[in-house]
C-alpha cells in the first residue's frame, strides 16, 4: 500500500484550495487599498500565494499521474480508469475519463494563464486576479474531498480516494490491505489519439474565456469601462479559435471512432459547449466594433459575461447529473451538484449585480447607426449568433425546467425533442444561411464610407462570380433540395465576398486579413456540413438479390454487404474483397494476419508462425513473440479499381463480452471530393463451432493434382515418417506419417500437413489440418500400400465472412479544410491584437 503519495496529493489539493483563497483575499486588498505602499505589499503577498497555488496544482497533477503511471491500484482512480496493459500515451486520457481529472485539467490551464497575466498585465493584475483566484478556489473545492465536521457536509470528490473507501466489496472486510492485480481499464473508445488531445484543447478553450471575463469584471469594478476591451480582445480571439478547434476535434473523433457516420449529434453535452462558443464569436464581433467605432460597448459587456456564465452553466449541466435522462454521455453525479450550483450562482449573481450597479455609468453612443455601415452589419450578425445559441440552449435546458418545477412542488414531464438531429438542423440551417448572408454582405463595408451606389458597384462582380460558381456546383453535385440550394448559395457568397476583401487587403495590409480568412473558413464549413450530412449515401447496397439473413430487418438486408473471404464483390465503382481478420501489434504499425500467429496463454501475446510481412515490409521474424491488443480485430478489406489496388481498409471491431456486444469503428478511404466510410456491421461469431459439411474422400498418388470444392488446385506433395507429433515423442513401435499437401487458394498457396498414426499396432489416430481462409479441413484417412495411393478426406464449411456497411460522404473534407482555414484566420487576428 502506498499511503504516502495519496496523502501528499490530498495535502497538495488542500494547499491549492487554501492558497487560492489567500491569494484572492490579498489581491482584493491590493485592489481596494488606496496608498501605494499598502497596495504593493498586498500585491507581493498575493503573488506569493498564487505561485504557491500554481505549484500546488502542478503537484496534484504530477501525483495523480504517478499513481496512474505506476499502477497503484489501491487507489480508486487508477483502478477505475487504467490497467496494466494500457499504452503509455493513453494514460493521459485516464485524467479526463474521470470528473476529478478534468477539473484538474481545467485548473491547470487557469494556473498557466494566470501566470501569463501576472507577467504581462501589470495595471490590471490585482482586480483580474481576484476573479481568477476565486474561480480557482471553486474548482479546487470540487476535488477537495474534505468532510466538514459537525454538519457532515462533504466538499468535493478527491481523486486520491482509496479503492477500499470507494467500494463496499466484502473483500476489504477480510483483507483491508487488498490490492487488485489489474485495473478496470480505460473505455476502449477513448483509446484513440484524438481523445488524448481533444479534452486538453477543449479545456484550454474553456480556460481562455476566463481572461476576457476577468478583464470585464475588473473594468466594471474599477470603473475602467472602456479600457478593458483592449487587453480582453486577443484572449477572446485565442479562446474562440481554441474552443472551436476543441469542439471540432470531438466531432472528428466521433467521425473516426463511432459508427453512427457523423460528427455531430446535437446531444445536450455537445450543445452545452456549442452555445458558449457562438456567444463568444458574437462577443468578439461586438468588441471589434467597439474598438473601431465606439459603439456596442454595452453589448460587449453583456456578451463577454454571458460567455463565461454559459460555460459555467455547461459545466453544471454536464457534471451535475441533471442530464442523466437526456444525454448519452453526460457524467454521472459525484455528489457535486450542490457545489456546482453554488459556483454557477456565485458568478452569475456577482456579475449581474455588478453590471446593474454600474450600468448607468457605462458610456454609450446615442447616434443611430446607418444601414450602410460596418457596425450595423456586425451587430446584426452578432444578434443572429445569439439567437442561434438561444435556439439550442432552450431545448437543451428542458431537464433544468423540470427540476425547477419539481423544487416548487409541481410536476413536469417535458422531455427533449425525440429526434434531436432533425429538430436542431431545421433551425440551425437557416441561422447558418443568415450568418453567411450577413457576414458576406458586411464585408463590403470594410471601408467606412460607402453609399448605395458604391455598394452596388462593389457587389456586382462578387455576385456574378457567386452565381457562376453556384450554377457550376449544382450542375455537378445535383442539389435539388431548396433549403440546401439556398445554403450552398449563401456559403459561396460568403466565400466569394471575403475573397474580394482578402485580395484588396493583401495589397494594402495583409496583417488585417485575419477576419476575411476566418470568414472564408466558415463558408467552407457550411458547404462541407451541408454536403456531407445532406448527401451522405449508403453505397454498400446489397445487389446480390439474396437476403443476408431472414432474421435481420429489411433495412439491414438492403444496406449491408455480405463479403465472403477472398470473394470479390462490386461496390461504389470498386471491386471489394474481404481478406481476413487481422491483429494490430503494439510496438509497430501495421497489421498481422491471424493465420500467421499462434495464441499463447497470455492473451496479450502471440507467437509468429512465419515471417510477418505487411505491405512489403518485414515486421517480425518467425517465432518472434508479438504483443497485441487482444480485444481488437481488424477486417482487411481491399478496394480495387481496374485490377489495381486502390485502398486497403482496416475497420475495427472490439469484442467485449463483459459489455455484452461488439463495438465497430470505421476505416475511411479519403479522397478530396468524398470519403468512403466503411465499418463492420456484423462480425462472425468465433465462439460458435463451425458446421462442417459431409466428408468427401479422394484417392491420390504422390504428385497428383486434384481439386477441392472444384476450384482449389491441390497436390499431395510428400509423405514423410515422423518421430514426434506436436512435440510429443512417439514410442518405438508406433508409426506416424505426415502428409504435405499444397492447396492453391485465391491469392496464395497454403501448405498443410495432416497426420496419420498407428499406436500400439492397432489403434489408428488421425489429426486433420485446417485451412482457415478456404474453410476446408483435410484428413489423411488411410494409406493404401497395394496401389501406392493415399485416401484423403475433405470437409468444407461456410467460408469466413463479414458484413459491412459503407457510406459515401461527399465534400466532408471541405468541412475539415474550412476548420483549418478558420483557425488560421483566428490566429492571424489574434497575433495582430496581441501585438497592439
Amino acid at each position, binding site marked *: 500500500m502506498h499511503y504516502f503519495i495519496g496523502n501528499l496529493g490530498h495535502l497538495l489539493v488542500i494547499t491549492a484550495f487554501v492558497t487560492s483563497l489567500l491569494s484572492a483575499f490579498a489581491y482584493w486588498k491590493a485592489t481596494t487599498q488606496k496608498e501605494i505602499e499598502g497596495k504593493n505589499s498586498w500585491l507581493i503577498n498575493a503573488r506569493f500565494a498564487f505561485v504557491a497555488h500554481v505549484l500546488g496544482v502542478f503537484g496534484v497533477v504530477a501525483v495523480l499521474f504517478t499513481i496512474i503511471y505506476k499502477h497503484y491500484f489501491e487507489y*480508486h482512480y487508477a483502478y*477505475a480508469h487504467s490497467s496494466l496493459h494500457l499504452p503509455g500515451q493513453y494514460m493521459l486520457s485516464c485524467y479526463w475519463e474521470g470528473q476529478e481529472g478534468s477539473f484538474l485539467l481545467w485548473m491547470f490551464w487557469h494556473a498557466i494563464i494566470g501566470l501569463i497575466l501576472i507577467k504581462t498585465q501589470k495595471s490590471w493584475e490585482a482586480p483580474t486576479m481576484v476573479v481568477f483566484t476565486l474561480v480557482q478556489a471553486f474548482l479546487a473545492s470540487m476535488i477537495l474531498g474534505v468532510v466538514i465536521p459537525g454538519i457532515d457536509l462533504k466538499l468535493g470528490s478527491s481523486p486520491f480516494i482509496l479503492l477500499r473507501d*470507494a*467500494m*463496499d*466489496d466484502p*473483500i476489504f472486510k477480510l483483507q483491508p490491505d487488498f490490492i*487488485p*492485480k*489489474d485495473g*478496470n481499464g480505460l473505455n476502449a473508445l477513448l483509446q484513440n489519439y484524438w481523445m488524448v488531445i481533444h479534452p486538453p484543447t477543449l479545456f484550454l478553450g474553456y480556460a481562455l474565456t476566463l481572461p476576457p471575463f476577468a478583464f470585464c469584471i475588473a473594468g466594471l469594478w474599477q470603473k475602467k469601462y472602456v479600457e478593458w476591451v483592449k487587453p480582453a480582445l486577443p484572449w477572446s480571439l485565442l479562446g474562440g479559435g481554441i474552443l472551436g478547434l476543441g469542439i471540432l476535434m470531438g466531432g472528428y473523433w466521433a467521425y473516426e471512432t463511432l459508427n453512427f457516420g457523423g460528427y455531430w449529434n446535437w446531444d445536450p453535452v455537445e450543445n452545452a459547449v456549442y452555445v458558449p462558443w457562438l456567444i463568444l464569436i458574437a462577443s468578439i464581433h461586438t468588441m471589434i466594433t467597439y474598438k473601431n467605432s465606439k459603439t456596442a460597448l454595452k453589448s460587449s459587456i453583456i456578451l463577454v459575461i454571458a460567455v463565461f456564465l454559459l460555460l459555467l452553466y455547461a459545466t453544471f449541466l454536464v457534471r451535475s*447529473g441533471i442530464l*442523466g*435522462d*437526456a*444525454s*448519452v454521455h453526460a457524467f*454521472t*453525479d*459525484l*455528489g457535486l451538484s450542490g457545489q456546482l450550483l453554488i459556483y454557477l450562482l456565485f458568478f452569475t449573481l456577482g456579475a449581474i449585480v455588478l453590471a446593474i450597479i454600474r450600468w448607468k455609468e457605462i458610456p454609450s453612443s446615442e447616434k*443611430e*447607426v446607418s*444601414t450602410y455601415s460596418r457596425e*450595423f452589419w456586425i*451587430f*446584426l450578425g452578432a*444578434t443572429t449568433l445569439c*439567437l442561434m445559441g*438561444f*435556439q439550442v440552449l*432552450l*431545448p437543451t435546458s*428542458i431537464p433544468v425546467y*423540470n427540476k425547477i418545477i419539481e423544487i416548487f412542488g409541481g410536476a413536469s*414531464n*417535458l*422531455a*427533449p*425533442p*425525440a*429526434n434531436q438531429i432533425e*429538430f436542431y438542423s431545421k*433551425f440551425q440551417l437557416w441561422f447558418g444561411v443568415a450568418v453567411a448572408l450577413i457576414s458576406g454582405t458586411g464585408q463590403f463595408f470594410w471601408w467606412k464610407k460607402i453609399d448605395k451606389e458604391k455598394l452596388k458597384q462593389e457587389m456586382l462582380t462578387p455576385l456574378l462570380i457567386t452565381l457562376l460558381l453556384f450554377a457550376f456546383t449544382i450542375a455537378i453535385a445535383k442539389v435539388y433540395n431548396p433549403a440546401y440550394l439556398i445554403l450552398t448559395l449563401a456559403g459561396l457568397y460568403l466565400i466569394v465576398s471575403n475573397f474580394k476583401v482578402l485580395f484588396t487587403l493583401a495589397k494594402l495590409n495583409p496583417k488585417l486579413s485575419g477576419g476575411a480568412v476566418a470568414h472564408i473558413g466558415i463558408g467552407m464549413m457550411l458547404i462541407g456540413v451541408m454536403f456531407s450530412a445532406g448527401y451522405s449515401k449508403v453505397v454498400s447496397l446489397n445487389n446480390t438479390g439474396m437476403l443476408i*439473413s431472414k*432474421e*435481420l*430487418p429489411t433495412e*439491414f438486408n438492403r444496406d449491408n454487404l455480405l463479403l465472403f473471404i477472398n470473394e470479390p464483390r462490386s461496390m461504389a465503382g470498386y471491386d471489394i474483397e474481404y481478406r481476413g481478420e487481422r491483429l494490430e501489434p503494439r510496438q509497430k504499425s501495421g497489421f498481422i494476419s491471424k493465420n500467421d500467429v499462434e495464441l499463447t496463454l497470455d492473451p496479450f501475446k502471440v507467437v509468429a508462425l512465419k515471417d510477418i510481412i505487411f505491405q512489403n515490409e518485414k515486421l517480425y521474424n518467425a517465432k518472434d513473440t508479438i504483443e497485441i491488443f487482444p480485444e481488437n480485430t481488424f477486417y482487411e478489406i481491399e478496394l480495387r479499381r481496374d485490377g489495381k489496388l486502390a485502398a486497403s481498409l482496416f475497420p475495427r471491431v472490439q469484442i*467485449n463480452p*463483459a*459489455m*455484452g*456486444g*461488439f*463495438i465497430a469503428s470505421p476505416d475511411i478511404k479519403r479522397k478530396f471530393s468524398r470519403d468512403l466510410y466503411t465499418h463492420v*456491421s*456484423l462480425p462472425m*461469431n468465433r465462439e460458435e463451432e463451425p458446421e462442417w459439411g459431409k466428408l468427401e474422400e479422394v484417392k491420390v498418388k504422390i504428385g497428383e493434382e486434384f481439386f477441392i470444392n472444384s476450384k482449389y488446385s491441390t497436390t499431395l506433395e510428400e509423405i514423410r515418417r515422423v518421430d514426434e507429433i506436436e512435440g510429443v515423442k512417439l514410442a518405438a513401435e508406433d508409426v506416424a506419417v505426415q502428409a504435405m499437401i499444397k492447396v492453391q487458394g485465391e491469392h496464395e498457396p497454403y501448405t498443410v500437413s495432416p497426420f496419420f498414426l498407428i499406436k500400439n499396432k492397432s489403434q489408428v489416430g488421425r489429426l486433420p489440418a485446417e485451412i482457415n481462409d478456404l474453410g476446408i479441413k483435410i484428413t489423411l484417412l488411410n494409406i493404401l500400400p497395394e496401389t501406392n495411393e493415399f485416401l484423403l478426406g475433405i470437409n468444407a464449411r461456410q467460408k469466413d465472412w463479414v458484413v459491412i456497411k459503407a457510406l459515401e460522404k461527399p465534400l466532408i473534407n471541405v468541412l475539415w479544410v474550412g476548420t483549418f482555414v478558420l483557425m488560421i484566420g483566428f490566429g492571424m487576428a489574434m497575433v495582430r491584437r496581441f501585438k497592439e
Partner: protein
Amino acid sequence: MKKSHILAIGVIAVAIVIIISTAGDASTYVNFEQAYQLASTGSSTQVHVVGQLPKDGAGQVVGIEKSTDNLSFSFLLLDDNNKEQKVFYNEPMPPDFLRSEKVVVIGNYQNSQFIAKKILLKCPSKYQEQKLNAGV
C-alpha cells in the same frame, strides 16, 4: 421608428417562434400506460419512458432476449408505476446496458409492442458500485 426598434421587434419575433416550436417539438416523459393510451389514439409521437431493469434474487437482470446474430434485442423494463413491459430495440445491446441502474427508452407503441428508437443509460456512480470486477 428607429432601426434599433425594428431590430428588437425582429429579435423578439424570432425568439417567440423558437419558444413555440420548442414547446411543440418537445417530447414527454410518460409511463407505459400513458404511452399506450397515446399510441391507441393514433398518435405516433415518440415519448420517453424511464424505468429499471427487473432483477432476480441474485441481482441478475432477467428478461433479456438477444436475436441470434446479436444485432437486436428485447428486454423487460419496469416503469415508475411498476408496470413491466417488453421493449424491442433494433440495435445491438449498448455497452454497459446490464450495469445501468436506470434506463430511458425513447420510442412508441406499435401494435401493442414498445419499440425503442434510442436508449439512454444511467450508470451507477462509483460510490454505488459495490463489487470489484472479475480478474481481481
